[in-house]
Every structure is written in C-alpha cells, then in structure tokens.
C-alpha cells in the first residue's frame, strides 16, 4: 500500500507539472501564433515581389518534389518556392522565372547556414549571378558559371540545385 501511494505521488506530481507547463505553452502560443504567421506570410510576399514584381499571383496546383509553392504571375512569369538541403539545414528560397523561361530573381527566405560563410548566400552579388540563366546552371567547381561562395561550396550547390529545380518545374508546367 505504501508503495502504491508513493508511485501515485510520483505520477501525479509529474502530471501536474506537465499540465501546468502545457497550459502556459498553449497561452504563449495563442499570443504569438497570429504574429508569427503574419510575419512568415509577409516575408514570402516580399520575396515574391522581389524576384518577379506583379500585381497578382495565382496558385498553381501542380506538385513536384522539393517545390513547396508555385504561382503564375499576372504578367506571365512564374514564381516557384523551393526547398533544398544546404550545409546546416533546409534552404527555403523563392525563384522568379520570366515568360521566356529565364531566371529573373532569386531570394533566400530562410536558411541555417554558417554565419560569414554559407550565410553569405543571401548577398545580392551572389544571387544576381543566377539572373538570366536558362537551362542547367552549375557552380564553377562543377564546370559551370556560378562563382561559389568562399568556403561554402555545399551552400552554393544547394542554391544552384534549387534554381535548376525551379526551371525544371516551369518547363513542366509551361
């Protein structure tokens, strides 16, 4: 009987602590959820405007591995959101493709690459290299035209792969 009481006490104490923590987490989640979602949407919309400015984007239903979202812009181009494995995790990016099948902009929405190395993939001069590309792009180490970031070949390859994926997607749809 004594054992039973002790075990019951252990269980109830842990249950109580867990319940209180869960309640508090629910509260904080409720307070921050809307704001986090709004920030995410705003970020994605900003990226879309940056890679291919347009007034209206219509969702394309066609799905492909690695493509998380795709839109047809009212001026005939496409905006494709792709996710590729980088060095430190997923690189989430938006690629704009114009009506004639050329890349017109790349924007990195989120990444977890190393600061000062892979994190440089958000830099304008790196991303600008992809503008105008059609067909397969490669980094210079693989015999291509894209200057890989110093010390971050893996990151550069991942971004390049993402751009290729977006181009392939547009070819498939368009």
């Amino acid at each position, binding site marked *: 009987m004594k054992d039973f009481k002790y075990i019951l006490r252990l269980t109830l*104490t842990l249950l109580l602590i867990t319940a209180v*923590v869960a309640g*508090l*987490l629910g509260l904080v989640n409720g307070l*921050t959820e809307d704001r986090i979602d709004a*920030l995410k949407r705003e970020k994605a919309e900003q990226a879309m405007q940056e890679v291919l400015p347009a007034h209206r984007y219509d969702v394309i239903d066609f799905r492909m591995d690695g493509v998380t979202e795709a839109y047809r812009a009212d001026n005939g181009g496409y905006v494709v959101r792709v996710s590729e494995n980088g060095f*430190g995790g997923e690189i989430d990016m938006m690629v704009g493709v114009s009506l004639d099948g050329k890349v017109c902009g790349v924007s990195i929405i989120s990444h*977890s690459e190393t*600061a*000062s190395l892979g994190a440089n993939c958000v830099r304008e001069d790196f991303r600008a290299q992809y503008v105008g590309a059609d067909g397969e792009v490669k980094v210079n180490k693989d015999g291509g035209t894209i200057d890989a970031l110093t010390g971050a070949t893996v990151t550069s390859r991942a971004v390049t792969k993402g751009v290729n994926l977006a181009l392939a997607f547009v070819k498939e749809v368009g």
Partner: protein
Amino acid sequence: MNFKKQLKEGLLTNNPVLSQLLGMCSTMAITTTLFNGIGMGLSVTIILICSNVVISALRKLIPDKIRIAAYIVVIAGFVTMVDLLLKAYLPALSDSLGVFIPLIVVNCIILGRAEAFASKHGVLASAVDGLTQGIGYTAALVVMCIIREFLGSGTFGKGVLGADGVRILPAQYPALLVILPVGGFLTLGCLIALTQWINRKLAEKEKEKEAVQ
C-alpha cells in the same frame, strides 16, 4: 548569499563555459558574430533565471526519483516560450540562431545549475545563481565572438552595428579557418588556458593574504 562572490564564480572560477565546460555545442556553433553571441547569451540567461526560480520553488515538492524528468519539462517549457516570443517579436535573431534556440533544452548549463544549485538552495539565491551563471556564459560567448569575428571576418559588431558591422581588416586578410569549427576549438582552448591562469593567480593571492593574516 553573496552576490559579489557568485558573480566572480560565474565569470571566472566557476564559469559555465570556461571552467565547467558546459554548453560546448552552442558555444562552438554560434560564436561567429557579436549579434549571435549577445542574443544567445541573453536567451540562455533569461531561461536559466526562470528555470532556477521555478525548480528552486518546487524543490521540496518534487520527489527525488522523478526530479530530472520534472526539471526537463520545466526547462523545455521555458525554452519553447522564449523560442515563440523571439519568432514573433525578434525574427532577425530567431533566423540567425535557428535551431540553437530549441536546443537550449539540452544545454547542460541549465540542467547542470538546476541539479547543482537550484535543487539545494532558496528561490532568491537560485535567481542570483541563474543571473551570475548567465552573465558568465554571455561573457564567454561575447569574448569568443569578438575574437572569431575579428580574425575570421575582419569585422566588429556584425548585426549589432549595422548589418555588416565595422570593417577593421580588409576583406582579403581574415582567416576563414577561425569561423570554421576548428577555429572555435582553438579560440576556446586559448580562452580556457587564460581563465585557468587567472584563476591560479587569484588563488595564489588569496593564499598570500591568508598567510599574512
């Protein structure tokens, strides 16, 4: 309770990073820019104070057998709250630290202090311990960040003083190695040696004082 003594312990003689060698993973991974160091240090300090206070308040209620489970639930709760709040109100910091904020749950400093201090002392003393240990952790991170950012990127205050910080060395001189994990280990090794040297000097001084008396 002695704030000055606890602060000295947190900063030098019992520094979580440089003397206890806790929280190595985050120390290696994020100390590449000043912004990261300060952000991570403050996040850990806040979580450490909160978890120390709660665990100290509950110390007589929690049976010994389930204490680790109970501590982890409390710590994970605070870490998730901080993670959500950062995502909502400081998205730049949240993006920059990424997965290392949720990973504070398994940062040994928090559980280590809960086990070694908060479970044996009163609420106020535990809060002070959380603060001083947090300051020690932040100080160690900031020093590492400044050294690695200077030698590795040639800048100071990246993210704090403008997006690119203040450039000190021309872009072609910095050694990339220092930003990589290798550089983290080298920097940490030197800092640990320095801390040990200071600690020994301090101990010698104290002994001399006692001898005179």
